[in-house]
């Protein structure tokens, strides 16, 4: 049976590499996935210039002009108030109106989340949306044995209640089931100890509720050390802690690379050692390549928003589009709603 046609709205502006990489990503998608259509939202002239030079399938791409955009450094609420025709807001509106099925943006995260909050509806039972992120771990997860776990929230909701944390757990589990093809993902709460009574009152309360939740495989609390170990498939926390954790993981990764570079430059013996390890390191890099995973989903709305990394190149953008399409075709929103 032919796959259902799905349209992904891409906020073309605002990424670190400008419109070119997003247009190239959408072009790639138009060549690789016949059932996917890209709706490119942004400066029509810039999009056309990029598109004209890029191999693409014009039958699967359309353009919506948006005269403004939110830059990375801008304060989201003020920027969206000043620019009602900003590309991310226009794209979100098109998704809300049914012109597209999901939104992908590599631009300002806050503006994207705010645009989604203003135009999409929260699912019944969800009080606050959550930004989820995949991160590399020591163990494989799901059917594909991929080395990534999911952590949420990483910044959409700074202060979460116990009910919010429970909703995040349900949303994260649904996402892992559908996108990571993990039929029964393990879910854990991030705390300062594995005992159920450890942590602030909201975490303790959430632990009690989750322990009795029939639709989840709740494995209790995990500590920070368990995050890179991959003890759980889905780690639940509030946006403040989640964001700190995520940035720390990124920082560690960058520091390791810097140390390796330092070692490479310092001594011949270290250089030789690194050269011998290079194929293994390359494999490791491929395994943990965030570009393969496209971006971070914002969960909890009736429509899906995938926040692609600001540094995303074409391949990462195309993958973000594929992840969004998979979530749409698998009816992620309905799965979350049923879980709640």
């Amino acid at each position: 049976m032919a796959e259902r046609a799905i349209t992904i709205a891409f906020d073309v502006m605002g990424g670190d590499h400008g419109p070119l990489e997003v247009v190239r990503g959408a072009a790639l998608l138009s060549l690789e996935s016949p059932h996917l259509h890209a709706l490119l939202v942004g400066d029509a002239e810039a999009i056309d210039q990029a598109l004209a030079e890029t191999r693409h399938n014009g039958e699967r791409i359309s353009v919506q002009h948006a005269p403004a955009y939110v830059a990375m450094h801008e304060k989201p609420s003020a920027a969206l108030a000043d620019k009602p025709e900003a590309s991310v807001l226009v794209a979100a509106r098109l998704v809300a109106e049914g012109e597209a099925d999901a939104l992908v943006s590599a631009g300002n995260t806050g503006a994207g989340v705010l645009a989604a909050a203003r135009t999409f509806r929260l699912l019944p039972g969800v009080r606050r949306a959550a930004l989820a992120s995949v991160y590399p771990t020591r163990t494989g997860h799901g059917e594909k044995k991929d080395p990534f776990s999911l952590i949420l929230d990483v910044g959409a909701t700074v202060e979460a209640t116990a009910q919010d944390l429970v909703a995040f757990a349900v949303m994260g589990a649904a996402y892992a089931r559908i996108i990571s093809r993990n039929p029964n993902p393990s879910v854990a709460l991030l705390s300062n100890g594995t005992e159920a009574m450890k942590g602030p009152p909201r975490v303790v309360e959430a632990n009690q509720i989750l322990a009795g939740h029939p639709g989840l495989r709740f494995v209790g609390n995990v500590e920070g050390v368990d995050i890179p170990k991959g003890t759980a498939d889905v780690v639940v926390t509030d946006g403040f802690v989640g964001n700190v954790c995520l940035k720390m993981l990124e920082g560690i990764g960058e520091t390791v690379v810097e140390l390796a570079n330092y070692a490479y430059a310092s001594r011949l013996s270290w250089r030789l050692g690194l050269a011998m390890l290079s194929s293994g390191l390359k494999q490791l890099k491929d395994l943990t390549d965030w570009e393969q995973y496209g971006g971070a989903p914002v969960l909890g709305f009736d429509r899906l928003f995938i926040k692609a990394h600001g540094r995303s190149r074409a391949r990462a953008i195309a993958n973000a589009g594929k992840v969004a399409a998979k979530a749409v075709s698998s009816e992620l929103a309905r799965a979350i709603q049923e879980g709640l």
Partner: protein
Amino acid sequence: MSLPDRIDPHPARHIYRWDLDKTYLQTDFDSLRQLLKTALQKASQKTAVPGAATLIRELGASGDSRLCIISGSPVQMRNVLEEKLKLDGVEWDELVLKDNVRNLLRGRFRALRGQVGYKLPVLLESRVHAPVDAEEVLFGDDAEADAFIYSLYADLIAGRVEEPVLTKVIAAAEVYPDDAARILEAWKAVARADPVRRIFIMLDRLTPPAYFSRYGPRVVPVFNYFQAALVLLGDGLLTPAQVVRVAREMVQTAGYNLITLSNSFQDLLRRGLPLQAVAAPLIQALEGALQGPDKVLAALRPVPDIVNAFTRRVAALGTTPPLPPAKEVDYLQLLDDARPRGARARDKAGKGARKSG
């Protein structure tokens, strides 16, 4: 003054010239296996590019046109190709195929893949016998040198190309002397006119459309024949109802839908083709077709959605860009396009190797 031997009661007012492989027929011959498969296919196994057969039939419906097909397929395939065209209800006036066995036997190996030395003399010789005022629309693809050859042909008969330029092109394309002589002879015999209105290039390889801007706005790269039909509607060569029939075939045979059709329409607008005015009559024709018992078109969507899809694609752009101005094509700068694709690839690989060396 002597009268011509025969006066054609219905001289052609329009001539449509088509390539076959990858333009009319969906053909894969990029590998030896695909080539063999193509050669052994029966007529019923061959598939036309969606919309192509209907477009040809609709263009011929006025009764004052000629269909001239020139293909690089070998003459041994004539029966199969003729049968396929008949199966599709396509009536042709000329069908020229390539005699590659003869080329092989005579040791003319360059001619096996060469395009300029084969197509240019055939086009010019055909034009010699055409009415001076007959306008032409040409259809090719991006797999070989069609944009180059068709543009050169158009500019040759319009008198925009000088003999030294043509000579250099012939040399660069490694055309054999007898074919070169045919080109020059036919060119000199052709009555000077400027009849080529459009050159459509089917983007079989999805070459970026901007690649063809070097040939000016006369060359229109298209992703499908709905786009070609829209441009021909704008040019007054088709009616809205005929365009709807082309779309209908594409919906029926290749699963085109409202999104792909309206995206195709917007794609042309974004390239500066002034087609805003055709949207309304086209929608009207679609509405008219939907009044009847046409189940294929009815499967598209309800009429308001059709209206919405097309008008929204126009409105979405704000202002549309202007069509790039026509400019003289510098064939000497584009000589690389005149050479067989294989030779181009080999040259590029050689240059790359020299650079890295």
